[in-house]
């Protein structure tokens, strides 16, 4: 079980930003002229997509490959699938590689579904006999039985994607590379794809799943490889690495919104948010809350002018800023005290029901009709929740809804 399936040893990959010697020659001359005349070195004409990347993946492991756009994930996949070769360093892959990268790349619009299944299978390295044996399974998986002898150009894009995935999923590679193709298709088809991945996992196949952040994919991973700016940032267990990655993404987003926050939505606003503080059950300022424990959000404000019944809204979002839910003072019948020049409200979360991970909350004060922002703190607080993890596979998503189970003894009809 400890055989190495994939090994990268100091792999670097350089791309030229221009192709063709004539373009390069022209650009080099232009650069030279700039350097001599203006003493400006100019932009370099190469780009290192990967720099000294080394890692080992054992047979039977499922690896989540994460990183921001342009971090080098796709380049790793391209090297693994032998589409391109590293500029420096070496790599070894033990076994047949199947790639779910842009499914259906080999389809021809004028050929029928049947002809395309054979063609695409052959491109992916299947023999005719193998395709014959799996043909019915592939067609059933793709749910295109009725159209199998229709030219592909009359297929809907959904049908094409399903057929592409179906072929790729049936090539039975020892190493399967999955790019974010699962983002396509409807929920039922996604579930089918995830089941197929789980099935391959049980067969002790090595799987590399690529994701920006996709919990449904990540929860299948045994380890996570985090690539940042072409280098290995971390390679470790799911919870730890994914969490560090999410925290970094959040920090970057927060850094961006600090600038946003400096620009108030309404400069002459009659009310400003002054402080937002998260406290634990004992009232101490906290950055980490345990699942199931209460937490307090305190919002301070100053009133600068006449104002009629403002509304406070608190929105929770995940590490990438995707809103998960919100509460408003209006809906809960809470009115802000406007009598003094300043005041504070406290939102009591009893208890916190988020799953393990990194979260943020935004605080907004609206006018009485909730049509205008009077003030907005888009990333007022970031916090961690310690609790049930998606890695346990017991939970999915971000929230465990308040609930209880009951056994039903009488007959239900």
């Amino acid at each position, binding site marked *: 079980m400890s055989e190495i399936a994939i090994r990268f040893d100091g792999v670097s990959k350089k*791309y*030229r930003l221009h*192709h*063709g010697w004539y373009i390069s020659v022209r650009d080099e001359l232009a650069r030279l002229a700039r350097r001599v005349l203006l003493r400006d070195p100019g932009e370099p004409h190469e780009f290192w997509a990967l720099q000294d990347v080394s890692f080992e993946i054992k047979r039977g492991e499922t690896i989540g490959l994460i990183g921001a756009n342009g971090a080098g994930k796709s380049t790793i996949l*391209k090297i693994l*699938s*032998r*589409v*391109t*070769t590293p500029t420096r360093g070496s790599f070894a892959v033990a076994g047949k*590689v199947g*790639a779910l*990268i*842009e499914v259906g*790349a*080999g389809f*021809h619009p*004028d*050929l029928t579904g049947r*002809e395309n299944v*054979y*063609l695409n299978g*052959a*491109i*992916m*390295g299947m*023999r*005719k006999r193998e395709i014959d044996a799996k043909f019915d399974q592939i067609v059933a998986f793709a749910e295109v039985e009725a159209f199998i002898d229709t*030219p592909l150009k009359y297929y809907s894009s959904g049908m094409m994607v399903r057929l592409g995935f179906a072929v790729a999923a049936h090539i039975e590679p020892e190493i399967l590379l999955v790019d974010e193709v699962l983002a396509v298709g409807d929920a039922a088809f996604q579930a089918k794809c995830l089941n197929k991945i789980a099935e391959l996992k049980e067969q002790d196949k090595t799987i590399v799943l690529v994701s920006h952040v996709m919990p449904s994919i990540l929860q299948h991973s045994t380890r996570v490889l985090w690539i940042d700016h072409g280098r290995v940032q971390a390679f470790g267990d799911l919870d730890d690495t994914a969490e560090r990655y999410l925290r970094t993404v959040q920090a970057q987003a927060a850094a961006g919104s600090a600038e946003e926050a400096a620009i108030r939505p309404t400069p002459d606003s009659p009310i400003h948010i002054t402080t937002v503080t998260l406290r634990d059950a004992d009232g101490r300022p906290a950055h980490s809350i345990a699942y199931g424990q209460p937490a307090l959000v305190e919002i301070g404000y100053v009133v600068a002018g006449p104002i009629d019944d403002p509304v406070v809204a608190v929105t929770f979002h995940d590490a990438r800023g995707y809103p998960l839910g919100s509460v408003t003072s209006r809906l809960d019948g809470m009115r802000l005290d406007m009598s003094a020049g300043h005041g504070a409200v406290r939102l009591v979360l009893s208890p916190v029901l988020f799953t393990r991970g990194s979260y943020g909350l935004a605080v907004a004060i609206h006018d009485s009709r909730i049509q205008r922002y009077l003030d907005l703190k888009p990333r007022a607080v970031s916090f961690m929740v310690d609790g049930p993890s998606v890695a346990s596979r017991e939970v999915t998503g971000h929230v465990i809804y308040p609930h209880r189970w009951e056994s039903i003894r009488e007959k239900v009809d």
Partner: protein
Amino acid sequence: MSYLNDLISHRHLILSFAQRDIRAKYKQTIFGVAWAVFQPFSLMVAFTFVFSRFAQVDSEGIPYPIFTYSALIFWTCFASSVSQGTIAMTANANLVRKIYFPRETLLLAVMISALIDLAIAAVVFVAMLLYYGMGLTWASLWVIPLLVLQILVTLAVICVTSAVHVHFRDIGHVLPLALLLWMLATPVAYPLSSVPASTRSLYMLNPMAGVIEGYRQVLLHGSPPDPGYLASAFAAALLGVILAYLFFKRAERTFADVI
């Protein structure tokens, strides 16, 4: 050697690509495979008027239509595989960018699809033999080594041009003109005997000149080709194809990056 092992393990892919090319080529056409005959046939008609009626080119005692058609079917096979082969990488850029497979399978598929067109066009050649009351001799079997020689020359050419086309699309613009000039430098419309003896040795450096003249000799005159020429042409073509293949495999590594 590892190149060849890899290629052999993908041999079924060559056929799949060839099948795709042929099917896609004749789908949604009214005349279907008749188009394979159309090009050499219409050139034959035009050449007969221009070179036989107007210019009165000598055809060595053979009816001019079959004289030129016997060369045109093979030349068409060569020209279409060179023009299709040159753009084979770029025409399949979507595949090359995303999926690994030995890229030369695309070239071999082009070759196969051109050979099938040749076989269809050859049916008309047989019909013309019957029409002119001409028979074939055992010397006709020399067509097979000549065809192998032609395939080697074609592959050597497209290994280089297809790889270069990935980087420089200029070659796509040059190609039609180059093929036209090449045909004029090959005894397609006229016999080799009309080339002055003084320039003959230079003329014969064109590998297609010996091949095309060879077809006509073995099919229409029933005389075997010069074994010395054939052997040296084979050796040169083999060396050419090996060097071109190594060049192609070296260039192949960065196809996906620049295509």
